[in-house]
Structure formats: structure tokens, C-alpha cells
């Protein structure tokens, strides 16, 4: 699989989804629902603790046409960034 993509600094986030503690498939399902609430070109931030999201979110972005901007490690969780198509 691909290497971990690190998100650039200073991203302007339109909305944040807290999916910490959720396991597959809930983080991706909630991401799918949450992205409907932002406009094209805006960025959704997802906070998660499931290592599986590292595959699920980029994989879903490439299928759905959104841009996966990468992830950032935080203390005990990961921040994922998705730019809506």
C-alpha cells in the first residue's frame, strides 16, 4: 500500500468530525454523511483512532472524487483532511 501522506500545515478547516473511539465502518460512514454538510472546495477534518481509517478514507476519496490531503498525528489520535470535490 501507499506510504502515509502527511497533510500540509495551516489548512483552513470548514468542519471537524470527531470519530475518535469508533471502529470500522463507522468513521467512514460518518465521514460520508459529514461531507454533505460542506461546500465544494472546503476541507473536512476527521479525528479518528482506528488505524483502518488510514486505508478507508484515502480509498474512499479516490473513488468518490474528493481530494485526500493527508493526515497528522496528534496525541493518541489521527487528524485526516479531505477536500470536497
Amino acid at each position, binding site marked *: 500500500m501507499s506510504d502515509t501522506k502527511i497533510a500540509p500545515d495551516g489548512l483552513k478547516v470548514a468542519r471537524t468530525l470527531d470519530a475518535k*473511539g469508533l*471502529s*470500522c465502518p463507522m468513521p467512514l460512514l460518518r465521514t460520508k454523511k459529514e461531507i454533505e454538510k460542506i461546500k465544494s472546495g472546503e476541507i473536512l477534518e476527521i479525528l479518528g*483512532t482506528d*488505524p*483502518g481509517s488510514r486505508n478507508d478514507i484515502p480509498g474512499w476519496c479516490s473513488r468518490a472524487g474528493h481530494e485526500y490531503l493527508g493526515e497528522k498525528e496528534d496525541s493518541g489520535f489521527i487528524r485526516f483532511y479531505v477536500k470536497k470535490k
Partner: protein
Amino acid sequence: MSTIGEKVNEIYDSFFKKTWSPMTGGILLALLAIFMFAWQRPWGIVGGIRNWADWLFYAVGIFDEEPPHPLYYSSSVMNLGLLAGAWISAVVAREFAFRVPPVLELWKGLIAGIFMGIGSTLAYGCNVGGFYSALHNLAANGLTMMVGLIAGVIVGLKYLYWEMEHLSPGPAGPTFLGNIPPVFGILGIFGLIAWAYAYGYSDMEDAELMAGYLLIGAGIGFVFHRSRLCMVNGFREPFMTGEAAMGKAVAVSVILGTIGIAIMKYMELRPEDAYVVPAFWWGSLVGGFIFGAAMVVAGGCGSGSLWRVAEGQIKLWVVIISFALTNSLMRYWFEETGFMEKLGQPVYLPDIFGYGGSIFIVIAVMLIWYIVIDWNEESNKFVIEM
């Protein structure tokens, strides 16, 4: 030019850190399942977790008969190996942590586990013993369970969509012990070898066989975690996102394992009736349906729940505990009442279609599934909208 040190790092990263592709996982799982059968018996899950629950009921006086020792019972040792292999993989990749989910997820785990226990009792196994290994062994109940699983997965997914609209998960619990140094994982490999070696000094019956169950089981756990191979994902994603990579990996894994295992039965190296259980057709179909719906809500099937337990996911700890307790009680009750014999007939496909015809049927079913989900990946015809 890279130095030897850089090369070693690169190999270490690709083996221990990066996630393998689902297809790599599927192919390796098939080879290990064949190896397990060549060693002694088919790979299974439920017998082992039921054995653990049987001990609890025996300890509190509900069951009269002492269950087999979990360190000398094949299915239990396979599961312990799977847990160890997945834990080693998780620690070395720095992906192990105890993750406490929101309370709603714990309730879902508890209830889904109960239904997985019911479904696996009716089908004489979970998706491994009742579907994956059953097809390897040319048992007709594997085909009916697959139909049940697919129907159940759709129902489970519809529940999740409903939940998204009506229930909020609430705050997550803490995540802790996530900083175990990877060297502990490497030490775990030596620990496993020592454990397997210790069986050589045991006087218990079949002790030497346990070493193989443990180490092949550990290989299975390691492969599962490294590739995040997940049969729930394989059945669910075609309906949820259209993604087919995992489903195709499972299909290829079934095909490869069937060829390897059927050859051993054909050559009479192993008993023909292995994993051919009296669950065709209704027990496997209804059990598959119940199990399929529940495994989507649980977020893990028999094998997928176990490797996630080893990754520290507390929801799946709840799933495995309620799954095991339910299966143990229900199986006990069904055996007491003679109902285990009323779940269907044992149907061995070669008795009807011969070996060539049976292998062809299993491969054809898997290829059709492969082609359909591959086509669906582009057309999204089966994707259920939220």
C-alpha cells in the same frame, strides 16, 4: 546507491510497518489454511472461543462436564496463535492501543455478539468454519451460508444507515497503552517460538500437534493484521461504497484454498467428511443471515473480531465475549435437546458432482462474485444510498 542499512530498513518497513494489499493477505491466508489442513485439520474459529466460554459455565456449575484444556484443544490454540500473531503485528507497526469506544458502540458490540453466537450455532460455525473453510472442504453448507451472509450484510448495513440518522454515538472513552515499543513485538516472536517448543516437552496427548496450530495460527493473525484482511469488509463494501478490493481478495482466497484442500481430500490424505456438517440447507442459510447482519454491526466477523481484539479495540472484546458465551450456551442447549441434528443434512458436493465438478462449482461461484463486484465497482449498481 542505497547502503545495506537503508535496504534493511526498507525491507523492515515494507514487511512490518506498511499495510499489505488485501490480495496479498488473501493469497497468504489461503496458503496458511492449506498448511493448517496439511498439518492436521481445517482452520476454524468458533470451536476455540466456545471452549473458553464453556470453561466459564463449567466453573460456575452450569455445565457438568469439564471442557478440554484450552492449551491442548486445537481450535483454541489456533485462536491463541491468531491473537498472538495479530498482536505482534500491531505492536511492531505501532498500531496497538486500548481504544475505548462510545457507550453506544459497546451496546452494539454486546447485542451483535449475541446474534453472532446464535447465527454461528445454527450454521455450525462463523464465516470461517461455516463459509470460508466449508467451501475449501467442498461442503454444500458453505454455499448456503454465503447466500445468507450476503442477505444479512445488506440488513446490517441498513441498520447502520438508520442509526446514523437517529442515534448519536456520544463521547469516546480513553485510548491508552498506545506506546508499546516495537521491540516488544519482536520479543513476542521469540516468546511464540518458546511456547511452541515447550509443547515438545509435554506428555499431553497430541501436544506436538499444538505447536503447529499455534504457529500457523500466528501466521494467520499476522497476515490478517498486516493486510487488514476483513471478510465483513469484503461482503459489505460492494453495498456501502462499491469498493471491491477486499471482496476480490476473499474470492481468490477461497478459490486457492479450495484447490489445495480438495486435492488432499481427493488423494485421501485427509478425511472426506472434515467440515461437512449437518447444516444444509436451512441452518447455514438462516445462521448465515443472522451472522451476516450481526457482523456488520459488530465491525468484525469471527476472524476479524479476533485480530481487532489483539489490536486493542475494546468494542471487539465485548463482541467476542458475548459471541462466545451465546454460542456456548446455545450449542449446549441444542445438543441437550437433539436440535443440532435438525439443522439440515451434511452434503458433500463430490458425492453429487464428483471432485472435478465440485471444485468447478466453488470456483465458478467465486468468479461470478468476483466479476459482479468488480463490475459494481464502476457501475455502483448495488451501492445502497444513505
